[in-house]
């Protein structure tokens, strides 16, 4: 897909980024102590912190990833919204106040409050670094996805841009600037998403989303012995045919020297060829989009309803709909999704997206992405359960969320800010369903990158809304990345250098070490963000949740609620949680696809490790703690 930058969009974007940088410089002048750098002085109002929580949490995964996943897989994307929000229940009822009571700058402080163990300092600092990096990757990928349609620049430019700005922000001002950026951005994102949702309701659903929407052609075909032998068209000539791994047939047609791919299907009992989208990577390095170079702009944005039912009547335009009517109409209609398949045509690699009319009933229930219905297996269902568990337990184990509890003045303020966060985040997550489904039916989808669905939907409703939403979404990434880098730099400077290695640092020295660590972590994140281009960011964040839940949550919960927990038990649990979750992810089918290998060759047949790695970390903690009761030091000291 080719995106042309609009000067207006660029102006809004630049103004937004400059405002963020100004804010950062403003707070930099006030940040001279480590308490100011890591905990914003500990005197942020709970209302500001609550919305800043929302800003931190409504990251690239939420606006870009969830909207994209709903746009491509329907309700299955909304499962992420439900799981992410449910995770705040754990944060509110179990973690918020104790974390605030026990910690200072990092969650390691809280974890180590009654043990003062070097082992905990080391393992939890490493855990913070790993989880932060896992979470940083999707944010960077999201940044690249935003910059492409906004500024017309390649993906890697977006990643480097975000990395550079964030390193500047974090290396100057720390948590105070991050908090206020997140507060403003969190509020703006919710307002802008509400406007976008209203625009969707007003627009309604149409079989032809816009006048310029590409009309996909259908040609009658004659099939003999499973092969297309003739077509009912004087314009096109059959010049080839292939099958994919599932046995579906595709035919290559030529018209005026341009080759296009068509999917063989059946309509009313007759064999027909339906026009598909294709990207062909030729052996000589040439890349053709629907048979032509990219500049020809023949690779269309897609997504439409093929049959719209409103109150039992079939229509071509639903007119304006209320929120519930919108969902009900999608549920009763048929939506054309574009399904991807890959095959070889001689030496050329063909990526093809064919039309897949899907009933609204299937779109509005789980099962299009996660196999829980037709074609499900025990392992596919286990994978689904595993994801939901990781989302539930992951939130309260995320370092950049946990450190936000140190920016408010009291445990009561921590509690109140969490409740406000739940309200703001919950409202936004309801909107993701409307925005994702809206993108699905308005002909805006770029089949090569699901992460762009939200911004492209905004573009459909005008360049102003698009510019504002993209700038906010970019700020979303900036803020989340800033929070993650503050957490990671805290782990290095405060937990590792100062507490584990015992290197005495002055207050200013701690801030300086944190800033250097921020630059190093930021550079790592930029590199990883470029490597993982094109992967759905919500999927990547789901994996980060699994690692966080496995590494940190058993330690946090058991430290709070089981008096026999020992320092060695906590350290062992963190190590086992990280290693088991990461190993399972690296050997999973989805990661095998990233390696360019066949997903079916993956030794572990599930993508989400939580259901194995979280209990494993719990068991490790219990067993090691029971084995090291004699070594337990300071066990009598109760949680204050």
């Amino acid at each position, binding site marked *: 897909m080719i995106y042309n930058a609009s000067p207006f969009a660029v102006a809004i974007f630049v103004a937004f980024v400059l405002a963020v940088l100004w804010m950062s410089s403003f707070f930099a002048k006030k940040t001279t102590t480590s308490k100011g750098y890591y905990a914003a002085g500990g005197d942020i109002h709970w209302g500001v912190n609550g919305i800043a929580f929302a800003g931190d949490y409504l990251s690239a995964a939420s606006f870009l990833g969830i909207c994209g996943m709903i746009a491509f897989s329907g309700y299955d994307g909304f499962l992420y919204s439900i799981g992410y929000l449910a995770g705040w229940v754990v944060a509110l009822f179990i973690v918020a106040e104790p974390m605030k009571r026990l910690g200072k700058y990092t969650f390691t402080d809280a974890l180590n409050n009654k043990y003062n163990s070097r082992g905990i300092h080391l393992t939890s600092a490493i855990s913070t670094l790993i989880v932060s990096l896992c979470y940083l990757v999707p944010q960077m990928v999201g940044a690249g996805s935003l910059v492409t349609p906004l500024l017309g620049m390649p993906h890697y430019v977006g990643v480097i841009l975000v990395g550079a700005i964030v390193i500047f922000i974090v290396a100057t001002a720390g948590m105070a600037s991050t908090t206020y950026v997140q507060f403003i951005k969190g509020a703006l994102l919710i307002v802008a998403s509400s406007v976008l949702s209203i625009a969707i309701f007003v627009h309604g659903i149409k079989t032809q989303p816009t006048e310029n929407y590409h009309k996909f052609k259908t040609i009658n075909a004659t099939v003999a012995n499973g092969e297309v032998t003739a077509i009912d068209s004087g314009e096109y000539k059959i010049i080839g045919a292939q099958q994919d791994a599932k046995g579906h047939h595709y035919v290559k047609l030529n018209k005026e020297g341009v080759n296009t791919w068509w999917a063989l299907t059946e309509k009313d009992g007759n064999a027909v060829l339906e026009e598909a989208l294709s990207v062909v990577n030729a052996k000589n390095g040439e890349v053709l989009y629907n048979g032509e170079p990219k500049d020809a702009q023949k690779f269309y944005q897609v997504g439409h309803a093929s049959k719209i039912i409103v109150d039992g009547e079939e229509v071509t335009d639903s007119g304006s709909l209320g929120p519930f009517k919108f*969902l009900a109409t999608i549920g009763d209609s048929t939506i054309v999704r574009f399904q991807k398949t890959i095959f070889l045509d001689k030496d050329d690699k063909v990526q093809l997206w064919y039309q897949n009319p899907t009933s609204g009933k299937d779109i509005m229930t789980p099962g299009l992405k996660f196999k829980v219905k037709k074609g499900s297996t025990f392992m596919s269902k286990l994978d*689904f359960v595993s994801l939901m568990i990781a989302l539930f337990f992951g939130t309260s184990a995320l370092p950049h969320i946990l450190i936000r509890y140190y920016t408010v003045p009291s445990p009561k303020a921590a509690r109140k800010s969490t409740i406000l966060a739940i309200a703001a985040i919950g409202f936004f997550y309801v909107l993701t369903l409307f925005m994702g489904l809206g993108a699905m039916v308005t002909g805006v989808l770029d089949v090569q990158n699901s992460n762009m669905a939200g911004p492209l939907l905004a573009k459909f409703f005008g360049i102003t809304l698009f510019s504002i939403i993209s700038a906010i979404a970019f700020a979303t990434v900036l803020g989340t990345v800033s929070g993650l880098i503050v957490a990671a730099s805290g782990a290095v400077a405060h937990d590792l250098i100062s507490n584990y290695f015992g290197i005495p640092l002055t207050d200013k020295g701690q801030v300086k070490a944190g800033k250097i660590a921020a630059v190093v972590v930021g550079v790592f994140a930029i590199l990883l963000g470029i490597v993982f281009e094109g992967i759905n960011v919500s999927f990547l964040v789901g994996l980060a949740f699994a690692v966080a839940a496995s590494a940190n949550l058993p330690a946090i919960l058991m430290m709070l609620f089981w008096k026999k927990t020992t320092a060695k038990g906590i350290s062992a649990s963190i190590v086992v949680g990280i290693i088991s979750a990461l190993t399972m992810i690296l050997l999973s089918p989805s990661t095998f696809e990233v390696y360019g290998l066949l997903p079916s060759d993956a030794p572990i047949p599930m993508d989400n490790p939580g259901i194995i790695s979280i209990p494993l970390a719990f068991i490790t903690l219990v067993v090691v703690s029971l084995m090291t009761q004699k070594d337990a030091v300071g066990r009598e000291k109760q949680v204050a």
Partner: protein
Amino acid sequence: MGGHGPSTDWGEDKAIGFKTTLGLWLFLLYVLVYSGFIWINVASPETMAVKVFAGQNLAVVYGFFLIALAFVMGIIYDILCTNKEYELNEKEDSDK
């Protein structure tokens, strides 16, 4: 080694025991409702397609309910905790 302890000082909170117990019970209640959602999806996914309210299927209604429930339970938790803090702590402490 050092660097531990809270970033801000505040008075003793005598309501900690109550808040911890209440938090645990509310957490378990939510886990039960959340588990129900997962269970239906796995054991009887077709049930999720049943229309239950205002033309919406169970999947949508249950999903929205889980989101709303988290907020409602949060408000209840805050009210009960605040009342207990007023009851057990000195007023100036709980105002922090």
